[in-house]
C-alpha cells in the first residue's frame, strides 16, 4: 500500500506577493524508501518509457525525482495491453507481478502515467477524433483506440504511482483539399464544450472504479443494447441472404467483458489520480473545467496541457508564450491551492519562472531534451548578475548564439579544450573530462556519445535551475532573481526548425551509410533468424557478414570513412 502526499512549505517569512511556492510531492510505501519531488520541479520527459539518451546508470546521475511516461508510446498495437501474465524476473519473490515501473526499470522514481506525449515535436502527426467511448492514441506502431474499459485494465495492471484520468484532449488535425499535410485545426466551441463534458464524465467513472464501484454500468448497458440491435440486424440479414449459417458471434467480445467484470470489485485507491483540466482557448470553458474538476475530492493533482492551444496562438513567436501563460492562469485561478499543478508546454527557463510565479508546481524536462537534439549545451544560470558566456555573437552559422546556450555544431568550438561550463558538476564537465572540442568532434562524426554528454549536462543544469528557484522562493529573492534572469538571458529565440548546416550535411551522409549497412546487416539477421536455432549459429551469421562485406576486415569500419568523405565534401560547399 502506498500513499501520496503533497506538502507546501510555509514561506510567509519571504513576504512575496507572487503565488510562487515550494513543496514536496511524495509517495510513501511499505516496501520501498520514500520517493519525492521537490517543487517547483519536474517529472522527467521520456520517450517509450526511457529518458532519451540516458541508460539507467546515467539516468541515476540526475536528481529529478519523477518521470512521466506516455501510455501511447509504450502501449504498442502489437503488444498486449497489460503485464498481467508477465512476472517480474528481477523481483526477489519469483511470483511478483510486473508493474509498469518494473517493466521500464523506473522503480526508484515517482512514475506518472499519462496518455499523450507531453512535448510532441510534431503536432501534425495523424490524429483521428476521440469519441464518447474512446480516445485515440498514436503509438509507435500506429493508431490505437483506447476505451475506458481498456484504460481501467491498464491502470490495474500497470500500477503506476500516479495516473492521469482518461480525458478528451483536442489534438485533432484537419486536411484540406490541395494541402496534403494535415494541419492544426481550431476547435469549434461545440467541440471544446464536449471535451470538457466528456472529460468530467470519464473522470467520474474513473473515480468510481478507483473506489471499487462499477463505474461502467451505464456504458455497458448502452453497449449491450447496441450489440443486441446489431445482432438482430445481422440475423435478419443472414436469414434474408440465406448464407451458410456461419453467424457465430466472435467470442472475443464476451471474453473481454468477463475480464472487465472480474475487476469491478477491486479498488485501486493506492494509485493517485491526476486530472487534466480542459477548455482549450475558451475562457469560460477553462473556468468551468477547472471548477468542476476541482470539486472532485479524489483528484490529487491537476494537469494543464497547453499543447492543444497550438492552432489558436499568434504567429509571432514573442507573443505566444504570453498567450499560453494567460490560459494557464485562467485555469489556475479556479483550482485549489493546496493541490499540485503540472503544466505541459511551458518549458523555457523564463516561461517556467513566469508559471512558477503564478503557482505552478510541476513541469517536464522537454527543454533540455530539445536543446540536446539541436546540439546545444545550456549556459544559463539562475541568480547570476551577468552571463558567463560571451554575449550574442553572430557566427558562421546563420543561427545566433545567445548567452543561454552554445551550439556545439559551430566550428568555433572545434579547438576549445575546455568544459561546456566551468564549475559544472555534470559527467561531461566535471574535471574537464569531455571538452567542447570533443563534443563538437562527436557531433561531426555522428557519434551517439554526443547526445549522451549533452543530455547529461542539459538535464543537470535544468535541475540546478529548479533547485536555485526553490531556494530563492524560500529566502524571498525569487522576484528579484526572476527579473534578473530575464534581463541577463532574455527570451528563447524562436527555433526556426532549421538545423545547423553541419548537422544537415552529416545526417544526409549518414542516411546513405545506414541504408548500406542495413542491407548488409539484414543478411546477417536473415541468416541467423533471431535467437539462433541450435545448430547453426554464428558460423552462418559470419558467412552473411562476409558476403555482405567482401574484402573487409571486420575490425574496420569501412563505411565510416566513406561517410566522412561525403560529409567533408558537403561541408566544403
Amino acid at each position, binding site marked *: 500500500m502506498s500513499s501520496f502526499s503533497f506538502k507546501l512549505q510555509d514561506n510567509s517569512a519571504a513576504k512575496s506577493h507572487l503565488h510562487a511556492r515550494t513543496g514536496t510531492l511524495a509517495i510513501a510505501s511499505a516496501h520501498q524508501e520514500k520517493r519525492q519531488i521537490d517543487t517547483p520541479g519536474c517529472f522527467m520527459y521520456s*520517450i*517509450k*518509457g*526511457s529518458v*532519451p*539518451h540516458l*541508460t539507467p546508470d546515467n539516468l541515476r546521475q540526475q536528481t529529478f525525482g519523477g518521470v512521466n511516461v506516455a501510455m501511447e508510446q*509504450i502501449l504498442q498495437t502489437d*503488444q*498486449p495491453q497489460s503485464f498481467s501474465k*508477465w512476472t*517480474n*524476473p528481477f523481483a526477489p519473490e519469483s511470483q511478483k507481478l*510486473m508493474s509498469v515501473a518494473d*517493466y521500464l*526499470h523506473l522503480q526508484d522514481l515517482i512514475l506518472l502515467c499519462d496518455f499523450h506525449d507531453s512535448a510532441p515535436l510534431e503536432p501534425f502527426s495523424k490524429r483521428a477524433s476521440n469519441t464518447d467511448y474512446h480516445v485515440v492514441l498514436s503509438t*509507435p506502431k500506429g493508431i490505437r483506440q483506447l476505451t475506458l474499459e481498456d484504460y481501467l485494465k491498464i491502470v490495474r495492471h500497470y500500477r503506476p504511482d500516479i495516473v492521469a484520468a482518461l480525458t478528451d484532449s483536442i489534438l485533432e488535425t484537419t486536411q484540406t483539399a490541395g494541402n496534403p499535410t494535415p494541419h492544426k485545426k481550431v476547435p469549434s466551441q461545440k467541440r471544446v464544450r464536449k471535451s470538457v463534458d466528456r472529460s468530467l464524465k470519464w473522470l467520474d467513472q474513473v473515480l468510481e472504479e478507483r473506489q471499487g464501484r462499477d463505474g461502467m454500468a451505464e456504458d455497458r448497458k448502452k453497449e449491450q443494447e447496441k450489440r443486441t440491435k446489431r445482432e438482430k440486424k445481422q440475423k435478419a440479414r443472414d436469414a434474408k441472404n440465406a448464407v451458410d449459417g456461419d453467424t457465430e458471434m466472435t467470442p472475443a467480445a464476451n471474453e473481454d467483458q468477463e475480464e472487465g467484470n472480474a475487476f469491478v470489485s477491486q479498488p485501486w485507491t493506492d494509485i493517485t489520480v491526476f486530472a487534466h483540466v480542459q477548455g482549450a482557448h475558451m475562457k469560460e470553458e477553462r473556468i468551468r473545467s477547472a471548477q468542476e474538476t476541482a470539486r472532485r475530492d479524489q483528484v490529487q493533482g491537476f494537469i494543464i496541457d497547453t499543447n492543444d492551444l497550438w492552432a489558436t496562438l499568434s504567429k509571432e513567436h514573442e507573443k505566444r508564450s504570453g498567450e499560453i501563460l494567460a490560459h494557464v492562469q485562467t485555469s489556475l485561478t479556479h483550482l485549489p491551492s493546496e493541490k499540485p499543478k503540472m503544466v505541459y508546454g511551458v518549458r523555457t527557463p523564463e516561461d517556467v519562472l513566469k508559471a512558477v510565479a503564478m503557482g505552478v508546481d510541476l513541469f517536464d524536462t522537454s527543454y533540455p531534451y530539445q536543446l540536446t537534439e539541436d546540439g546545444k549545451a545550456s549556459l544559463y544560470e539562475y541568480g547570476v548578475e551577468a552571463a558567463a558566456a560571451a554575449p550574442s555573437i553572430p557566427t558562421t552559422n546563420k543561427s545566433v548564439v545567445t548567452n543561454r546556450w552554445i551550439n556545439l555544431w559551430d566550428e568555433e568550438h*572545434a*579547438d576549445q579544450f575546455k568544459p561546456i561550463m566551468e564549475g559544472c558538476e555534470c*559527467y561531461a564537465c566535471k574535471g574537464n*573530462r*569531455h*571538452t567542447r*572540442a*570533443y563534443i563538437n*568532434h*562527436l557531433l*561531426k*562524426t555522428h*557519434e*551517439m*556519445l554526443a*547526445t549522451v*554528454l549533452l543530455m547529461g549536462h542539459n538535464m543537470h543544469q535544468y535541475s540546478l535551475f529548479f533547485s536555485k528557484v526553490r531556494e530563492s522562493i524560500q529566502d524571498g529573492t525569487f522576484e528579484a532573481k526572476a527579473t534578473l534572469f530575464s534581463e541577463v538571458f532574455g527570451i528563447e529565440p524562436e527555433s526556426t526548425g532549421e538545423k545547423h548546416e553541419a548537422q544537415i550535411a552529416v545526417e544526409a551522409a549518414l542516411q546513405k551509410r545506414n541504408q548500406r*549497412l*542495413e542491407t548488409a*546487416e539484414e543478411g546477417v*539477421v536473415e541468416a*541467423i533468424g*533471431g*535467437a*539462433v536455432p*541450435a*545448430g*547453426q*549459429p*554464428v558460423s552462418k*551469421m559470419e558467412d552473411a*557478414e*562476409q558476403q555482405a562485406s567482401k*574484402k573487409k*576486415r*571486420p*575490425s*574496420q*569500419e*569501412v563505411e*565510416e*570513412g566513406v561517410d566522412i568523405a561525403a560529409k*567533408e565534401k558537403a561541408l566544403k560547399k
Partner: protein
Amino acid sequence: MKSALKWDILAKCSTTKARAAVLTLPHGPVNAPVFMPVGTQGTLKGITPDQIEGLGCQIMLNNTYHLGLRPGQELLDACGGAHTFQGWNRNLLTDSGGFQMVSLLKLAEITEQGVQFESPHDGSLMLLTPEHSMSLQNSIGADIMMQLDDVVSSLTTGPRVEEAMWRSIRWLDRCIKAHKKPETQNLFAIIQGGLDPVLRKKCIEEMVKRDTPGYAIGGLSGGEEKDKFWRVVSQCTDLMPREKPIYCMGVGYAEDLVVCVALGVDMFDCVFPTRTARFGNALTSTGTLSLRQAKFKDDFRPIEEGCDCIACKSYTRAYLYTIVTKETVGCHLISIHNTAYQLRLMRQIRESIIEDRFPQYIHKFFKDLFVEKSAYPEWVVNALKSVNVDLIEGDKQQA
C-alpha cells in the same frame, strides 16, 4: 628496439598453445588473452568511458585514419593526444591507417613510397607514408601503434603477395626509424605473406630480427576459407617468439576467439559486437538474438541469464524489442551488453587457462553454442584437434 611494455606469462595451458598473461602498458595492466573493443572515432558507440571501464575494459582501439581526418593532427597535438581528447585513461591501440586508405578510397595506389590516395577533402592526391603514419600515431599517443603495412586481400594470389610481404618489411624499417616515442609507445610489426606458409615464415624471420615489442598476424579475416585461416594463425604462433604478445587483427566472433586462443594468440579486436548492436543483435552464449523480431514482444527474460551488465540487470527482451534500433538508449544498452559479453568470454577463457581447465571450457563453450556435435564447424574441429583438443570424442575421455 626499445619497448614500453612488460609481458608476464602467468600460466600456460598444458594441452593447447593457450597462455594467460599480464601485458603492462603505459596506461596500466591488460589481462591477456584480451579482446579490444573498437572505438573508431575516439568513442565506443555511445558508451561513456566510465561505463567502458566499468565493464572491465583495459584497452580500446582507435583508428588512425579517422582521427587523422577528425579532429586532425594539429588538434591532437594541441590537446595532448587521444587519451585526453576522449577522456579515456586506460590503454589505446591504433592501427596504421593503411588498411582504411586501401579499402575506403577507390583511387588508392600503393607505391614504394607509401599509399597514394585522393583526399576526401578536395580530391587532390595525397600520400600516406610509413613516416606520416608514425607521426600521426605519435600525435595520437596510443600505447600500442601498428606499422604501416602493404595490405593485400587474403584472396589475392601470385607475386603480388610476395611483393607486399617484402614491402611491409621495408616499411617496418622506415616505421622504426620514424618512431619518435619508443619509450612511451610500443610499435608492433605486422606479419604478412597471405596464405603461403613459405612467405609467412620468411616474413616472421625478418621481422623478428627487428625485435619489436609485439607482433600482429595481418592479412587475414578477409573472406578466406576458415580452414586456411586457422592454419596460417597456427603456423605463425609456432614461429613467433613466445616471449612477446601476439595479436590477431580483425578477429572477434566468439568461436574464432576460443580457437585462436587455443592456437596461441593473445590479443584480438573486432568492430562486430558494437556494430551489430546498432541493429538490435545481442550476443549470448547460445547464439545471437535479433531483438528486432516480433517474437520477443512478450519475452520477459533478460538478454542473457547471469549477465551482470546494465541491460540485463534492468530490462527484459520484451522492452528492448520496443526500443532497439529506435531509441539511442536501446542501442547503448545492446552495445554495453555485447561488449560485456566479449569481455566476459575472455575473462572466462583466461581463468580456465590459469586453472588449467581450458580444454574443458572449450568443450562446454561449443556445446552451449551449437548444442549438437554434428553442427560443429569442421574447421573448428580440425583446428582444435591440432592442439590436442578432440571436440567430437574428447569430452568423453575427460569425463
